[in-house]
């Protein structure tokens, strides 16, 4: 008897956790999962958002020569130079110089060596960043972490309250209602969500709950990097010294790290007697997201040291990071992550929708206060799901539509993202719930399908030009947006059909009731 009672109270507790925790954090989780899914193609999105950077492949040595020439010319006295060499999925050549607290970034044409003038943009990086910080620093990081733990807890509690989901899934008992969509996609994405949430959390907890580093290192703690990596830094001597040509060091570094594998070069104190040049290896072909490096004296060109072996626990930690950022397997793995990410989004959205549908028939008879609350929940559902999709696609539209030379253009794109989202919030409060869903789905579909058209009209990297040029990084953004748009259009069509049917039934019911009277 007691055991039965305990079991019942356990199920009740789990169901409470799943329902309300899932609702409150579900909005946030949809936002995190959707922007995170987009961030899988961060580099492609950045490439798409910089239509002026279209460069033919060149040898790394030629790219480096161009970068070096510009850096020597533009900022010979900087504290630090950084060069990002063109990679397979990162075709542009970026140079950055830091002087004091000021940092300037430029794009260089590796063939001609000229600076490319291009409008400022936040690129796909915005999505990657937004998905763990919500554009609000440490508060955002905490919110995302709590939401992620809620996600893990929701998986456990979800299985606890509905133990037959696995049986239903593997016996193919799939029905077409929101609860079933939620549970079946939930079972399907269970391993992926466990993986992605756990790996993400290990990284954020090192920042949020730094108890281990505090006990071990106290105040000298400067982040995991300073512990894992050997340092070859030297203080400035303030004596002028001629920097050794970087193009002479590149073949030496390539011999150590692999031909064509160098993605990043950092030069400390260029033009000083104590200059240090560090070459970093790409992590795009390894699951352990940690850069092997070789370090040279910037004046004599002597080898100062290298680090290509890491402690096994550093390996474990950085493999978790690698599993989260999904750079290791090229396009097949990226698409796999993208697909699983989208299905997870469907799972979260279906759960949120099921919450309101289950209660819709009930709360019509509830108190005024409860009615208002459920109305607000419906509106937040719409805003968090379709509103966010519209805001994300509007961010890409803003990139094409904002005038070329305005100040703070990257920030203006982000402003566009948030203002469109806010408008969608107002819209979902002002319109009746079902109308709001249908209208926002249509807007989202329109924006998505319109993206390739807009791109073709405003730039010269439209589908008709990018496909013959084999520029699939641009074309795939257009094509993916269009296909997502078609899916959204189909969904909106289904929802409006459903609404018309239920309205008809409603009328019939009303007539029947009158006849009885």
């Amino acid at each position, binding site marked *: 008897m007691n055991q039965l009672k305990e079991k019942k109270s356990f199920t009740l*507790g789990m169901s409470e956790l799943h329902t309300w925790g899932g609702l409150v954090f579900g909005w946030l989780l949809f936002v995190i999962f959707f922007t995170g899914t987009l961030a899988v193609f961060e580099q492609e999105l950045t490439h798409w958002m910089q239509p002026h950077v279209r460069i033919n492949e060149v040898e790394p040595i030629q790219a480096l020569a161009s970068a070096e020439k510009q850096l020597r010319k533009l900022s010979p006295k900087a504290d630090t130079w950084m060069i990002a060499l063109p990679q397979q999925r990162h075709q542009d050549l970026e140079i950055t110089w830091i002087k004091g607290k000021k940092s300037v970034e430029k794009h260089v044409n590796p063939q001609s060596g000229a600076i490319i003038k291009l409008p400022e943009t936040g690129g796909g990086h915005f999505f990657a960043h937004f998905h763990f910080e919500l554009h609000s620093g440490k508060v955002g990081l905490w919110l995302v972490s709590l939401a992620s733990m809620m996600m893990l807890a929701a998986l456990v509690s979800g299985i606890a309250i509905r133990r037959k989901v696995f049986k239903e899934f593997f016996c193919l008992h799939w029905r077409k209602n929101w609860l079933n969509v939620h549970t079946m996609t939930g079972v399907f994405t269970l391993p992926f969500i466990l993986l992605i949430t756990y790996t993400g959390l290990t990284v954020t907890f090192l920042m949020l*709950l730094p*108890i281990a580093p505090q006990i071990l290192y106290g105040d000298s703690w400067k982040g995991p990097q300073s512990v894992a990596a050997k340092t070859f830094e030297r203080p400035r001597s303030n004596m002028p010294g001629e920097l050794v040509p970087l193009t002479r060091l590149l073949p030496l570094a390539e011999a150590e790290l692999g031909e064509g594998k160098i993605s990043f070069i950092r030069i400390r104190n260029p033009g000083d007697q104590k200059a240090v040049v560090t070459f970093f290896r790409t992590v795009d072909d390894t699951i352990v997201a940690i850069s092997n490096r070789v370090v040279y004296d910037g004046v004599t060109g002597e080898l100062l040291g290298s680090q290509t072996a890491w402690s096994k626990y550093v390996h*474990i930690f950085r493999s978790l990071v690698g599993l989260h950022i999904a750079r290791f397997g090229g396009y097949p793995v990226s698409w796999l992550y993208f697909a699983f990410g989208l299905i997870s989004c469907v799972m979260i959205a279906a759960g949120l929708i099921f919450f309101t549908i289950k209660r819709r028939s009930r709360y019509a008879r509830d108190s005024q206060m409860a009615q208002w609350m459920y109305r607000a929940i419906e509106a937040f559902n719409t805003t968090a799901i379709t509103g966010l999709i519209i805001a994300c696609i509007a961010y890409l539209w803003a990139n094409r539509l904002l005038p070329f030379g305005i100040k703070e253009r990257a920030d203006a794109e982000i402003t566009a993202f948030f203002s469109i989202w806010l408008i969608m919030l107002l819209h979902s409060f002002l319109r009746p719930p079902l109308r709001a869903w249908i209208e926002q789905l249509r807007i989202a579909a329109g924006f998505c399908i319109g993206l390739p058209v807009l791109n073709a009209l405003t730039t010269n990297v439209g589908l008709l030009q990018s496909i013959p040029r084999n520029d699939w990084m641009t074309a795939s953004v257009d094509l993916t947006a269009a296909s997502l748009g078609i899916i959204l259009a189909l969904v909106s069509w289904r929802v409006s059909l459903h609404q018309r049917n239920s309205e008809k039934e409603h009328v019939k019911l009303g007539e029947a009731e009158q006849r009885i009277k």
Partner: protein
Amino acid sequence: MNTVIQKPFKQLRELLAGTDKTTQTILRILAAVFGGYALTSSIMAVLVVLLPWEKADVLFFSVLFPPIIYTAALIWAFAAPTAQRAWRNLLVITLFCGILALAAVWVR
């Protein structure tokens, strides 16, 4: 004088013993968030203090645990039959691990 101290204490006890559903849920949420944080911190402290490896190894080994511990605490707070039990469970283990960690540091 005595009543001045006793009164708020009594009120707190009544609040904690509250069987009203909203109070229970709020207490559970607080247990999950703050109790979870405390529990994770103290277990991590014990782990870090007791592992006899090199510092860097301990650090990168320890990052594997906080998400699991915190999530478990979160689920535990809602699995307990009452909010009071949830608080008690979390606090007992937190205190136990905290004292263990302090003792280990002291012995060293």
